[in-house]
């Protein structure tokens, strides 16, 4: 694939890339800490992955193979257009196969297949501050992070238990990184939280509108907040995938008609397609 010569490699200018790269390095050195950066205006609106795209653009090179997923799917508008963007401005190869990718940009899912040391996972983050619903003042949340004062989040989880009998947070479930920083895992389902813990791949997080970058280095402890008598439980729909039969993957509920018909299918389209192909091969 040849790239469009009208743009610098990977769209951003070099001084912007250096600024983002320095922020990423400090993020890696302080796992879970949000590093401010000068997010640029990108050729797509906020909420479509401007933070993730800028991180990917600062990281990606001509030898990389890029995969982009949106809620686990490779074939949604956001994923397709971000892949097309990087094919055009960086000339990189793209793939839908998790195993073949070296850089995976994701919106709100972690692939089912275990990631390796040779991969980098880039999350699109709408709101990097895990405490923002509890404390709106950034000056206050900065101080709470400085003091590792996270009692407020425990009170919130406790109130969940008092009201509902269990912790009623099914996505964007707060985590402690390396025992120091409270971090938003971005709105991935709580089902995916355990995959972040001691993951061999480097995890980078970019929030474009909020202008923050943070990171989890490989093999770093990521613990979902919980209580001794209410341990964290990853939740999934109690069904098997209609297409591939998986009982261990995260499922989407799909309405099939207007008479109450519904099926459950894997949210990770590559994982599902791979399982269907291997099942067909076996038959």
């Amino acid at each position: 694939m040849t790239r469009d010569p009208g743009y610098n490699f990977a769209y951003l200018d070099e001084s912007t890339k250096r600024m983002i790269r320095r922020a990423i390095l400090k993020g890696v050195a302080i796992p879970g800490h949000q590093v401010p950066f000068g997010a640029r205006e990108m050729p797509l609106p906020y909420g479509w992955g401007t933070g993730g795209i800028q991180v990917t653009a600062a990281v990606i090179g001509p030898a990389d193979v890029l995969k982009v997923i949106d809620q686990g799917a490779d074939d949604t508008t956001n994923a397709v257009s971000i892949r097309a963007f990087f094919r055009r401005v960086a000339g990189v190869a793209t793939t839908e196969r998790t195993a073949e990718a070296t850089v995976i940009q994701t919106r709100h899912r972690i692939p089912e297949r275990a990631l390796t040391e040779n991969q980098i996972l880039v999350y699109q983050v709408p709101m990097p501050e895990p405490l923002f619903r509890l404390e709106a003042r950034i000056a206050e949340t900065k101080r709470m992070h400085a003091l590792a004062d996270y009692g407020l989040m425990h009170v919130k989880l406790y109130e969940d238990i008092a009201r509902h009998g269990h912790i009623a947070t099914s996505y964007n479930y707060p985590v402690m990184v390396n025992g120091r920083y409270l971090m938003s895992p971005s709105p991935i389902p709580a089902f995916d939280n355990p995959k972040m813990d001691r993951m061999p791949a480097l995890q980078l997080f970019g929030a474009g509108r909020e202008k923050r970058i943070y990171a989890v280095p490989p093999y770093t402890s990521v613990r979902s907040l919980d209580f001794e008598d209410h341990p964290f439980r990853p939740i999934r729909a109690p069904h098997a995938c209609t297409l591939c039969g998986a009982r261990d993957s995260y499922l989407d509920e799909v309405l099939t008609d207007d008479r109450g018909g519904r099926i459950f299918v894997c949210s990770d389209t590559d994982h599902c397609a791979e399982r269907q192909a291997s099942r067909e091969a076996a038959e």
Partner: protein
Amino acid sequence: MQTRFAGFADPVLDAQAGFRAVLEAMSRPGRVQQMVAPPEVPPGLSPAAASVLLTLADAATPLRLAAGAEAEAWARFHCGCPLVADGAAFVLDPAASLLALDAGTEEEPERGATLILEVASLQEGPRDERCWRLTGPGIKDAQRLQVGGAPAGFVADWARNRARFPRGVDVILCAGTRIAALPRSVSIEDA
């Protein structure tokens, strides 16, 4: 003074490859990475250190440099960075003490400086010889790193740097064209 020495052969792609090497080094502390070397480097700088500066330093990053007049002219031209004595974001000065550099604040620890440290040699994990044993984020169990020519008392200073986490200074070790990184989160034992 003007410089006679060139920068990267390909400023865009070499900087990208250089960044990935530094990123890999920083996210897997103690693993040795190969840097993209510029075709020529001024006297006083190793190819790896020159490459790190070309990759990361620019007008927004004050640099404290003590590597001779040729290196200063080269850095001023290719990186465009202000050369300062205090408050530097990047420090390449053998006389710099780890604990005297800017360590950031509790609220903004990312303001901590990055120390670029020239050493004689870098070698990953020889089992029987005397070397450092690194543990912390980015390391599966433990990583062994042999550093030739580290400053005297570095491991003791590092323990104090580590103790003030999240404040602290991050270190990029350079030897020839090879680098290894010590983010402030890592612990070093002299084993």
